[in-house]
């Protein structure tokens, strides 16, 4: 077995910023990421959607690179850039020809040191974000299903249960003071990791990190709200109306174990047994054999990147001639079988080969073809911020490849229980659909 090894340098600067360099001179390009350990889960109450709105503000100007300059300087250096907000982290990233590396670091450091935005920028980006929500959720069939529909049904702690994209009233209520306070609290070097991947030498990368980021003063240690959920003891159900589509849909989510436990590795492979493409049991049974569902997909949103309660979710679009309860019964039969019998050693071997193959792809692949090493960047960032151990990228695979059929059976019984799940039914507004009981 030919396993790739990623060379990594990791150092914590005096101000608490983690710097990680993964040199690889194969192509003359470099990917830069800055991850802050704050996502939409722990954004302030009364300010739903703020972490994401704030992410937009990070492109609106900093002390030495006013509005529009950040984007202009990256694009005109031959690079692409973006940012994204997820449950527990927010990232900013650029991929550029390596001759623009220092420019990128200068820009990222400038906005970490001194964001400079005004009311006009905030109004502008609030408008942009509302159109983002309209195009992705409100004006789109099955928009937000289930990532926005599931949390309020599944969880009781506001941190896990609120609208992550933001209620428009909350977006409207956000003011410049909120932006400044959020920046001061969470966007401090001691709550972040800088990642340089690709065409840069380790020593040179570290020297550049020190040069541009070393002088940014540390902030206080951010206080984080507690995302712990009260123990779930009963199945939870919720209903959402689908305004556009004609197929009834449902999503079933089971609570996941904590990250980096033995159960977590076994659940990850069980997830693949259930949801791994067309060979996955749910697709095979519901779509191909029983032909109740038209399409299914599912899994854990971001296996390596969650740092609070999360679920493994199955999303099912089914034929209108089957009721929700009939569809759920077919799904339950698949779950019942793995709870009762586990999976065979042969099936587990197949899953491990596929897992290994997928993991290698993650190390190399980009986002949309133009962000090389995005997957590696994300792994390194999560392993640094949550585990203080970026080297895990070279060893994490071992835990998955060591999972036994007995462990799979054990986690199936332990986690795939009705009292640990939540179900959201997304029911078309148009007539002719049998309702769930």
């Amino acid at each position: 077995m030919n396993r790739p090894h990623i060379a990594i340098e990791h150092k914590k600067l005096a101000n608490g910023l983690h710097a990680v360099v993964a040199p690889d001179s194969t192509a003359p390009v470099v990917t830069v990421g800055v991850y802050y350990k704050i996502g939409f889960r722990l954004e302030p109450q009364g300010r739903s959607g703020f972490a994401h709105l704030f992410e937009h503000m990070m492109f609106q100007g900093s002390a030495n690179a006013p509005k529009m300059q950040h984007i202009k300087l990256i694009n005109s250096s031959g690079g692409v850039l973006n940012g994204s907000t997820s449950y527990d982290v927010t990232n900013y990233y650029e991929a550029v020809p390596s001759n623009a590396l220092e420019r990128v670091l200068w820009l990222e450091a400038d906005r970490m040191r001194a964001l400079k935005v005004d009311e006009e920028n905030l109004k502008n980006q609030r408008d942009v974000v509302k159109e983002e929500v309209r195009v992705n959720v409100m004006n789109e069939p099955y928009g937000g299903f289930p990532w926005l529909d599931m949390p309020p049904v599944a969880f009781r702690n506001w941190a896990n249960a609120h609208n992550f994209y933001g209620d428009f009233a909350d977006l409207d209520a956000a003011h410049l003071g909120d932006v400044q306070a959020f920046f001061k609290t969470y966007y401090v070097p001691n709550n972040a990791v800088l990642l340089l991947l690709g065409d840069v030498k380790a020593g040179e990368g570290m020297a550049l990190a020190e040069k541009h980021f070393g002088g940014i003063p540390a902030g206080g240690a951010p206080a984080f709200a507690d995302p712990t959920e009260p123990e779930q003891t009963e199945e939870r159900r919720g209903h959402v109306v689908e305004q556009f589509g004609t197929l009834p849909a449902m999503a079933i989510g089971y609570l996941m174990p904590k990250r980096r436990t033995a159960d977590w590795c076994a659940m990850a492979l069980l997830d693949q047994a259930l949801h791994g493409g067309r060979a996955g049991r749910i697709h095979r049974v519901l779509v191909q054999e029983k032909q109740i569902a038209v399409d299914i997909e599912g899994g854990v949103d971001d296996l390596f990147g969650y740092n609070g309660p999360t679920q493994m979710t199955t999303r099912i679009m089914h034929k209108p001639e089957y009721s929700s309860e009939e569809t759920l019964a077919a799904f339950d039969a698949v779950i019942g079988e793995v709870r009762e019998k586990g999976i065979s050693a042969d099936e587990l071997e197949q899953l491990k080969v596929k897992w290994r193959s997928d993991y290698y792809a993650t190390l190399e692949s980009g986002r949309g073809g133009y962000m090389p090493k995005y997957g590696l960047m994300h792994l390194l960032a999560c392993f640094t911020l949550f585990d203080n151990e970026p080297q895990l990228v070279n060893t994490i695979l071992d835990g998955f490849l060591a999972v036994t059929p007995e462990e799979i059976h054990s986690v199936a019984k332990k986690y795939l229980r009705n009292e640990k799940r939540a179900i959201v039914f997304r029911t078309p507004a148009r007539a002719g659909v049998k309702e769930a009981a």
Partner: protein
Amino acid sequence: MASRTVEVATGVPPLAPEREVIWPKRAKKQLANGLEVILAESHSIPKFHGELLLRSGNATVADRAPGLAEMTASVLRSGTRKRGSRKIEEDLRRIGADLSTQAGSDVSAVSFSGLSEFAEPLLDLVQELAREASFPEADFERERRQKLEEVKLNRTQPSFLANERLRKVLFGAHPYALVSPTEAQVAAYKREELQSVYREFYTPQNALLLLVGDFEPQEMLKSIEKVFGPWSGKKPEPRTFPAPASPRGRRVYLVHVPGAVQTQILAGCHAITRKHPDWIKLGLTNSLYGGAFNSRLVMNIREDKGYTYSPRSAVNALRQHGFFSVSAAVRNDVVAASLTEMFYELDKLRSLPVPPAELADAQNYLSGVFSLSLATQDGLLTQFSNVAQHELPDDYLETYRAKVRAVTSEDLLATARKYLDSANLQVVLVGDRAQIESQAALFGELEIFDAQGNRI
């Protein structure tokens, strides 16, 4: 037009000298049965990506039924003479591979990736799908039902409705006008039709096998000879269709979606194919207009005015014809304002030379993004596939960046005047008629349709 003064950055580090792209080693060969093979080494991970490309697609058989090549590709993976659907999927998993089958207007393809250690079994499955697909009746019926639901769902998606209408408007009686079959057309598909398409399209003389990844080319060629050598079959009769007339005069097509909380704008006009000598100049013009985050349109209607999240423009290359398009999903009350800015930025490019600094920025952008696309196995495959599909010269990729650098401001002005045909741009709006009809009517003669495509 920006309503706010743009300030410049101070203290920006200069760019270091650019490093050359190192081109992967490539090997080309044509097998005795006519199959073209292109191999490129890329050792970033112990995997490889591949594509078996058939040079015929939906357009080729549009007179039989729209979407027939796509349906053929969908059912293709459901069974061969040797393996049923479940076995195919589990065999793929056993060797850590991914595989998909699809067809567009001009080509059909089996795309795949997998571990280098299992290259031969994956190639073997690909050739089995290409040679011995059995189109099981039950799988055909299942896929057809899924397709029916997909076709229904499409009609609830603003971006689909916009694209469907624009293609009809631009391409008329040409097969490129059809982006999807109707429900009735799907219901009328016959298994035998799929089998005919399969026999005609999936032949070595019509095929190209592209592989990029971690392998030793000579050994890989041997495997390919062994696996694909016995495949036989002729090239299908080439099909050509009368060129569609370019619509004259600006018209507005409103697709009425009651209650829509936003309006999808999509406007376009005829342009050129990738083979056309003006392609790179038009690509650069597009990137200045709305093809990059830093482009004029994005800076104007997103970053300055906040009308939209996702404005963009594109030059879309089909094999026989291309078209230029610009799109944005905007607030209902700023449809007219957004269109005004779209036209303003088009006309500005048609009237005023692009300042040299802005041209240099755009050249850097296209050149740099091109380098980025070569940094992964998948990205390389996409580039080689484009060259093959559009029959571009062998040195296309190697000379691309120099050609981008050679474009002048005068070239851009001439290109914009030739192809950004604002006077004849066809405008599609998908939204709630009550909210946007009066705004729409300001921009040209108006026709209104429902989501099913009926005039209302």
